[in-house]
């Protein structure tokens, strides 16, 4: 039942994207004003 796989798969892929960018947001200093004292 591949259609069902698609529903799960696209949600998984979306969460991959969200987690990846949130992780980046958390780990790195992306904008000067938002990371007081932290280093990249």
């Amino acid at each position, binding site marked *: *039942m*591949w*259609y069902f*796989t*698609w529903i799960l*798969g*696209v949600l*998984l*892929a*979306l969460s*991959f*994207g*969200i*987690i*990846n*960018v*949130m*992780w*980046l*947001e958390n780990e*790195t200093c*992306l*904008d000067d004003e938002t990371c007081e004292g932290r280093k990249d």
Partner: protein
Amino acid sequence: MLDPDFVELSRWQFAITVLYHFIFVPLTLGLTWILVIMESVYVMTGKQVYKDMVKFWGKLFGINFALGVTTGLTMEFQFGTNWAYYSHYVGDVFGAPLAIEGLMAFFLESTFVGMFFLGWERLSKRQHLVVTFLTALGTNLSALWILVANGWMQNPVGAEFNVETMRMEMTSFAQVFFNPVAQVKFIHTVSAGYVAGSMFVAGISAYYLLKGRDLGFARRSMAVALGFGLASICSVIVLGDESGYEAGEVQKMKLASIEAEWDTEPPPAAFTLVGAPDREAMETHGAIKIPYVLGLIAKRAIDEEVPGIKDLMEQNKQRIRNGILAYGAMQKIRAGNASEADRKLFEVYKKDLGYGLLLKRYTDKVVDATEAQIDQAANDTVPGVGPLFWSFRTVGPHWDGNQVWFITAGGAVFAAWPAVYAASFSGFYFAMMLVLFALFLRPVGFDYRSKLDNPQWRNSWDWGLLVGSAVPPLVFGIAFGNLFQGAPFHYDDIMRPWYTGSFFGLLNPFALLVGVVSLSMIVLHGAAFLQLRTEKLISDRAQGAVTKAGLVYIVAFALAGIWLALGIDGFEIVRDRPHGALPVPVGKEVVMASSAWLHNYRQYPITILAPLVGFGGAVLAILFSRAGRAGWAFFSSALVQLGTIFTAGVSMFPFVMPSSTNPNHSLTMWDATSSHLTLNVMFIAAVIFVPIIISYTTWNFWKMWRVVTVKEIEEQSHLAY
């Protein structure tokens, strides 16, 4: 007989459209989900940079979306214009997914894509995220339904040939929808689109990083694209394997041609990496082969053989001979002088009838085919090995998604009256092309007119929009004017529609008059809407337009009515098919008689309301508009549309497309329909989706409704798409 060059040109035209279409579509499939990711993060973190990202990538999505819509519309037209007999023959199965695509997906995406661009100020963050999500869902559901249609072409399950209607008819909607090929193709194609979208975003972000521009923006975009892209690539790999396996199961000839595998070789089957396939000699020169690989692709095994082209051709020759038997039996059945043995013979061989029909190209009778002709037809069952072989070695992952996603304004007609779709699009070829080219200008025009801050640019696009919006109602009016007079077409013995008229024949005085009715009716409606939605200056000009268009409409509508009553011969059924008979449009007796189009008004006097509503609505629209009651004027002008369209319908009922060359072949509402099952499926789809569509379009209007002011337009000049 069809000119082979003509067929070849039609193929080229369709192929070029498909290729062009598929440049834009995969990008939009992936970009929409990337927008959903970015906006989800925006809702969660509230950081402005994510909103900027959604807007930036959203703009690029919009450009691709408009071009995807435009090229998709073209393909839909081409089903009717280029492949009329195809539409007729399989419309019963093929039309339903297209129509459901329209109901389920196209309404969704086209409603929400507008809110996506213009709704930032009017919707809460969460509401806007829902809108973005629904746009993405709509885009992907489009891909779903078109690939269900495409999957059926590759592996025709859930359908059976009906000898009386001379076409394929659906026997199980579930089988068509859950077709294994359709499932695999759908996920493989959309995943490939996700990868394309991710690569697009990653590529542009990488360029920004290299240039050292907007680093925060570029790194975040990159992170989104890589996360989403990685998951999608895994999906492409898994489904690619599944796709190859399905092709090995159900499309052996296609697979053998792609691999240029002329002879069945003993297992393990080797994969030809490169080589020069030679169709004449039936061998591949200078082939470099990788052992085991083809077996793994097609059979997931190294001990099974993959049949080669030559063996498959031999099998096909036998199927062509069976097809000849089936064709002969079928002709007897259709002529009504078949014995029990003939019917049995047909049942046994009918799955090979299509192979027999390949001979139509060489001999019209089919049953008298010579050995040489059978060889020729068997040769036709082998696709172009060279082009297939090479295209698969250059375009890689997009190999199967050749017909993703197109729109279905005519989808419902296709599903409900495939015969009408086939006959009208091919018959009114140049008129339809004119409409199509005009329609090109609309999505592209709306999307592009504000992209450059240059009055000349904007002005040209506005002219384009004017043409794009005026030509279709004019041409549809002209087409209707011709329907009243009957169109010159007839069917041959295998129910192929043949059209014998010309484009300039369409431009007769009566048809042009109906064109004026149609155009003035649309202008009236547009002007009334503008008066309602705008302020003073524009509103006053709109009021003038309502009056003028209304007067033109009243005069033209009255003249057309008088002309139709006195000067045009109508059609009348004198002997109909028995009640409940299968839908075959050639089984009745029809005569042309003067003033026959007034028949329904005499028989059902209540129907005279239709033209009265048309006239009355126009008078009221003018009066309300002049009194400054814009809302009522718009309502009255809506009545005009209703009255006019009903007038046309009532006059012609039950005819949909009468034939002037052979009135007996006229298409009516009853005998040009799809099978019972397809109509049922469409009914259920409509019952489910129409209320959903109405509720979300209402929400859309409610959220976006306001009087447009000059100040607002100046503020939003760049926001508007």
